[in-house]
């Protein structure tokens, strides 16, 4: 809803059970965003937040319901350690151990253990970077607009949508759009499946 962005489209089931919206606050809240604990070493947290306020993950009311739409944002927080910082701290840790243990070289497995230890130590200090992706679902037409075009986040969105609403999303692509048109016109899908790429330059 903010600024210029990209989005991917999906189709959800148009015919929803008559009691679909009952208890929806609790259902969404179950899959709501949870803050990364400062003391934890979790690198990532994802879940729904209020589309109007990314810091609101309570879903105490029905602020997500904007008839005929259901609108929420998927918030993803990630802790990332800058690669150069990890490299520097690893080198320092390795030097300290070599001096303490009077070793000239550290075996590969030992260096891997040191790297993991340093990474976990730095993770606790890393401030999570938060991103939000808006989702607007028209429950009458079934159209779902999700504010991201990246495959990884889109896959996570489809999965979270399924777990939350128990509905499978169908991605929209040139074929599915064409399929819809052909069906509306009462034509056979064979017309579509028989198409091959047009050779525009074969007359030359």
């Amino acid at each position, binding site marked *: 809803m903010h600024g210029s962005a990209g989005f991917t489209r999906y189709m959800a089931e148009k015919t929803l059970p008559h009691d679909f919206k009952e208890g929806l606050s609790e259902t969404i809240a179950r899959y709501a965003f949870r803050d990364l604990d400062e003391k934890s070493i979790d690198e990532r947290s994802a879940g729904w937040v209020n589309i109007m306020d990314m810091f609101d993950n309570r879903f105490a009311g029905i602020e997500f319901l*904007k008839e005929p739409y259901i609108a929420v944002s998927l918030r993803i927080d990630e802790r990332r350690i800058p690669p150069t910082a990890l490299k520097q701290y690893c080198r320092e840790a390795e030097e300290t151990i070599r001096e303490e243990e009077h070793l000239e070289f550290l075996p590969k497995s030992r260096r891997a253990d040191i790297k993991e230890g340093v990474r976990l130590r730095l993770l606790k200090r890393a401030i999570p970077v938060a991103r939000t992706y808006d989702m*607007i679902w028209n429950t009458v037409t079934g*159209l779902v607009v999700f504010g991201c075009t990246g495959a990884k986040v889109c896959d996570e969105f489809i999965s979270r949508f399924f777990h939350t609403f128990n509905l499978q999303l169908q991605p929209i692509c*040139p*074929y599915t759009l064409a399929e819809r048109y052909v069906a509306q016109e009462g034509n056979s899908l064979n017309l579509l499946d028989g198409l091959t790429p047009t050779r*525009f*330059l074969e007359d030359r």
Partner: protein
Amino acid sequence: MQILDRVRKTEFLGREFLLWLWYKSEAEDGIFDLGDKGKAEVWLDGKITLQSENERGVETITCTGEALNMKEARFALAEEKEIRQATVKLGIGDNQWSFVLDSTWLNFRSFKTPMVVNDGKEDPDGVFYEKTFLIEEAIAAMDQIYSSFIGRRISPEWMTEERRAISRWIQEGATGGAAQPGSAEGET
């Protein structure tokens, strides 16, 4: 057929749609009838990316410029490169949208709606509804234009009329000949 197989087997439809859209906007007037929603004007303006695959590997060319000035991109079409994504301008009434359409999924990137009138201070939901309406209006218009394309694409006229006209337009681009409105269609 699984969705990903379908996407791969029919992704040429997205590439042909973008080409058809460019041809319609440049060689013809780019006006599409949306029925009770009025008329939409579509033109390509800005960045366009074309790609070809051959024995030398994948070759990609990206051009930026005004619609009638994209000679390099027109030339690339004649070199059998296909459109992978294009910046599209859509006008309906006084409203104008801008977005980049990609050929594989027909996703909208860098999507800009017309200016939203409501400032959101007094009625935040008003902004939501206004913005959502503008998003859905653009999607519905492009879907309808895509349906027009599919209607032509599955008809016998695609090979006898559209393909010939587009071929001629592509070849005009290779020689630097300016496409005159309606000239390509007049050939058919």
